[in-house]
C-alpha cells in the first residue's frame, strides 16, 4: 500500500520508543484526555445509557444506509448543494481537483479532515500547483513540519512546544528572532496572525464532516478553534469530504451522538463549535460560500457492511480508544504507519488497505480491553482485532516462529499426560538452573523477556505433581 508503513509497525515502534520528545509530549495526555473524560462522564448520570442510544442509532442507520444516503443526497440537492460520489481516493482527488481548477483556485483553506488525509488531498493539490493551507492549529504545525497527524483529533500531540517553536522560527520568515516564543500562548498568537491573512486569500475551503443529516441534507462539523468555520465561510466554494458512514437520520439522532462525542474525545461537555451547513449561501445572506459541494467517499467501507467488521462503521472518530490505549501512549500515532492509529486504526486500517499490508496492527495489543471500555459507540475493538488475527492465521500470514511455537505448544496442551510429564521435567530443570536466586537473568529462547526483565524461576515441582502426591491419584 502506497504511503503506508503499517507492515513495519515493529520497527516504527522501536524508533518511536526512543523518541524522547514524543515521550515528553504524550506524558500529559493522562491528565487532559483521560482525566477530562472521567470528570465529564461523572457529571452525566445518563452517559452509559446515551452510549447505548448512540449505538442503536448507528446500528439502525447502517441497516438502512442506502436509503438514508439517498434521502440525504436529495435534500442536500434541494438546498442547492452538489453531491459527488467517490468509490476510492483517486476519484475523490479527481473531483476535488476539478472543483478547485474550475474555481481558478491558487490557495485552498483546509479545516481538519481525516478523509482528506486518507485521500492525500494536500499532496495532490501541491502537485497541481495549488497551495493547501491547513488552518487547524495542530494540522498547520504538522504541515509546516511535513509530517502526518499522529492522532485523529489532536494531530500534533506528538510534539513538544519547543519543537513547535523551532518549526515556527524555521518557516515564518520575518519572525523577530528576539521574540519570546517559549510559551504556548505566544506560539498560538504567532500562528493566529499568520493564518488570519491566509483565510482571505483562498478561493476554496475544504472541511470534513462529523455527520451528514438525512432529514435536512446538512453536514456537521465539530471543532474547538473556529478554523473550520472561517474556512467554509470566507472562500467562494465550500467542499465537504465525508465518508459514507457519516450519515445519521435526524437532528435528534445527531444530538444524541454529539452528547457522547466531545465527552469521549476531549473531556468537554460539548465542543466549542458545532456547525450545521446546508447548501450554499441564500440570496439575501451577507456571507457564506456561493457553492457547496459534498464528496461522499466509499474506499472500502461499503464492503465492510454485513461482514465481521461491520460494527467498526459505528466509529465517530472521537479518539477515546487511543487516549486510553497503553500501546498508543507508548509508541504514538506515527508508529501505526497510516492515517488511523490506535485501536480504531488497528481494526480499520486492515479493512481499508488490506490485512497483508497491516498485519502487525491488530497484533499490537495486549487485549487489555480499555478501548472497548471507553468507546462511546461500544465497538468491540479487541474482539475485532482478534478476528483480524484469525484472518491472518487462516491466510498463512502469521509469522513462522509464532506458528511453529503454537504447533509445539498445541501438541502438549491437547495431551495432558504428556504435558504433565514434560512440564514436570522442564520446571525442575529451570528451578535448578536458577538455583537459590529464585530467578534467571538470561534464558535461551526468551530473549524478548530477559532483555528487560528477570525471569522468575518456578518453585521446582508442578502443582499437579505435588497435588497427586498429597491427595493421591483419583
Amino acid at each position, binding site marked *: 500500500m502506497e504511503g503506508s508503513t503499517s507492515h513495519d509497525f515493529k520497527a516504527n515502534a522501536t524508533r518511536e520508543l526512543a523518541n524522547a520528545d514524543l515521550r515528553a509530549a504524550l506524558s500529559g495526555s493522562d491528565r487532559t484526555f483521560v482525566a477530562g473524560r472521567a470528570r465529564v462522564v461523572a457529571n452525566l448520570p445518563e452517559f452509559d445509557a446515551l452510549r447505548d442510544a448512540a449505538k442503536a442509532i448507528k446500528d439502525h442507520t447502517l441497516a438502512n444506509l442506502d436509503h438514508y444516503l439517498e434521502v440525504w443526497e436529495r435534500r442536500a440537492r434541494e438546498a442547492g448543494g452538489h453531491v459527488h460520489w467517490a468509490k476510492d481516493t483517486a476519484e475523490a482527488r479527481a473531483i476535488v481537483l476539478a472543483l478547485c481548477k474550475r474555481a481558478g483556485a491558487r490557495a485552498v483553506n483546509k479545516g481538519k479532515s481525516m478523509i482528506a488525509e486518507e485521500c492525500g488531498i494536500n499532496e495532490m493539490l501541491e502537485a497541481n500547483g495549488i497551495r493547501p493551507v491547513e488552518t487547524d492549529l495542530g494540522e498547520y504545525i504538522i504541515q509546516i513540519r511535513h509530517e502526518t497527524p499522529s492522532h485523529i483529533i489532536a494531530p500534533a500531540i506528538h510534539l513538544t512546544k519547543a519543537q513547535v517553536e523551532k518549526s515556527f522560527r524555521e518557516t515564518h520568515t520575518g519572525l523577530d528572532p528576539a521574540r519570546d516564543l517559549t510559551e504556548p500562548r505566544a506560539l498560538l498568537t504567532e500562528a493566529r496572525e499568520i493564518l488570519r491573512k491566509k483565510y482571505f486569500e483562498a478561493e476554496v475551503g475544504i472541511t470534513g464532516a462529523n455527520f451528514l443529516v438525512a432529514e435536512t441534507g446538512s453536514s456537521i462539523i465539530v471543532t474547538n478553534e473556529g478554523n473550520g468555520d472561517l474556512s467554509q465561510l470566507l472562500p467562494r466554494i465550500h467542499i465537504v469530504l465525508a465518508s459514507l458512514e457519516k450519515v445519521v437520520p435526524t437532528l435528534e439522532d445527531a444530538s444524541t451522538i454529539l452528547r457522547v462525542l466531545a465527552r469521549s474525545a476531549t473531556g468537554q461537555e460539548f465542543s466549542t463549535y458545532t456547525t450545521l451547513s446546508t447548501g450554499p449561501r441564500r440570496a439575501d445572506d451577507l456571507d457564506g460560500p456561493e457553492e457547496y459541494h459534498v464528496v461522499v467517499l466509499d474506499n472500502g467501507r461499503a464492503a465492510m457492511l454485513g461482514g465481521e467488521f461491520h460494527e467498526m462503521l459505528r466509529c465517530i472518530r472521537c479518539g477515546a480508544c487511543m487516549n486510553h490505549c497503553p500501546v498508543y501512549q507508548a509508541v504514538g500515532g506515527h508508529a501505526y504507519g497510516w492515517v488511523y492509529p490506535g485501536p480504531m486504526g488497528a481494526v480499520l486500517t486492515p479493512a481499508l488497505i488490506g490485512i497483508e499490508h497491516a498485519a502487525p496492527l491488530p497484533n499490537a495489543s495486549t487485549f487489555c480491553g480499555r478501548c472497548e471500555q471507553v468507546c462511546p459507540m461500544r465497538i468491540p475493538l479487541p474482539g475485532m482485532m482478534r478476528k483480524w488475527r484469525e484472518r491472518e492465521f487462516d491466510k498463512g500470514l502469521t509469522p513462522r516462529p509464532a506458528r511453529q511455537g503454537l504447533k509445539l505448544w498445541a501438541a502438549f496442551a*491437547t495431551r*495432558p499426560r504428556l504435558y504433565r510429564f514434560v512440564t514436570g521435567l522442564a520446571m525442575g530443570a529451570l528451578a535448578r538452573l536458577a538455583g537459590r536466586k529464585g530467578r534467571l537473568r538470561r534464558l535461551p529462547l526468551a530473549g524478548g523477556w530477559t532483555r528487560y526483565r528477570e525471569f*522468575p524461576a518456578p518453585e521446582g515441582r508442578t502443582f499437579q505433581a505435588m497435588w497427586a502426591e498429597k491427595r493421591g491419584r483419583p
Partner: protein
Amino acid sequence: MSGPRVGLFVTCLVDLFRPTVGFAAVKLLEEAGCTAEVPQAQTCCGQPAWNTGDRKTTQAVAKGVIAAFEGYDYVVAPSGSCAGMLRVHYPELFVADESWKARAEALAAKSWELVGFLVDVLKLERVAADYAGIVTYHDSCSGLRELGVKAQPRALLAGIGGLHLRELADAEVCCGFGGTFCVKYPDISDRMVSNKTKSIVDTGADTLLAGDMGCLMNMAGKLQREGAAVRVRHVAEVLAGMADRPAIGEARDGGEGA
C-alpha cells in the same frame, strides 16, 4: 465435606511456576465450605492459540477443558484471564457447532475467578489471615474488564490484620504482559511495564499483589531487574495466610540477590 463441588482450574502458569497459589486456592475454597478437586486432564485454557487467531487449535484445547470440568458445580481459576477465557470466550469459539456451543455455554455460566467467586458466590466477607505490610494492588485487565473483579479483592484485603492497602495510580492500566504480546513486542511491553513499576515504587508499598500470574511474573521480573525492593505475590497467597514462602522471583533462604 458438603458445600459445592468445585473443580479447580489451576492454570498453566500456577501449575508450572507457582504451585503455592494452587494450594492457597484450595485452602480458601475448602475453608469457605467447598469441596475442591483438581481434574488431572487439564493443561491450559487455550489463550495462546486464541490470541494468535488459531481457532481450530483453541477449540481442541477447549474441548478438553470442557470435558474435564463440566461435571462440577463450579469451575474456579486463580486467574482473571483464564477464567475470562472460559466464561467469555469459550462460547464464542463454537459458533457453528451447536452441541459444543451449548456445552461451552454451560461451562461458562459456572466458571469464576477465585476471589470473585469467594465474595460474589460464597458471600465470603473475611478471611483468617494476617499480613504485616503496606501492599498495593494491580487490577489485571481481564479480571477487571471481562469479569468485574475490582471491589472483591479489596473487600477481603481490608479485613486482613496488619495489612495496609495503598492504591496504585493507574491501577487499571495494563502492565504490558498480554501473553504472547510481551515476546512479540518486547520493546513496547518494556515501556508499559516500566511505567507500571514506576507507579508501584511511587506508592512506597513493600508488597505488590494481583490476581494473575502472567502480570505478576512480568512486574516481578521488571522490579527485580530494576533492583526495587518490592515483594510480589498472588493475592490468594496473602488471603490464605500462605505468604511465608519466598515471593515471586525472590531468592530462597540463603540465596544471594541478583
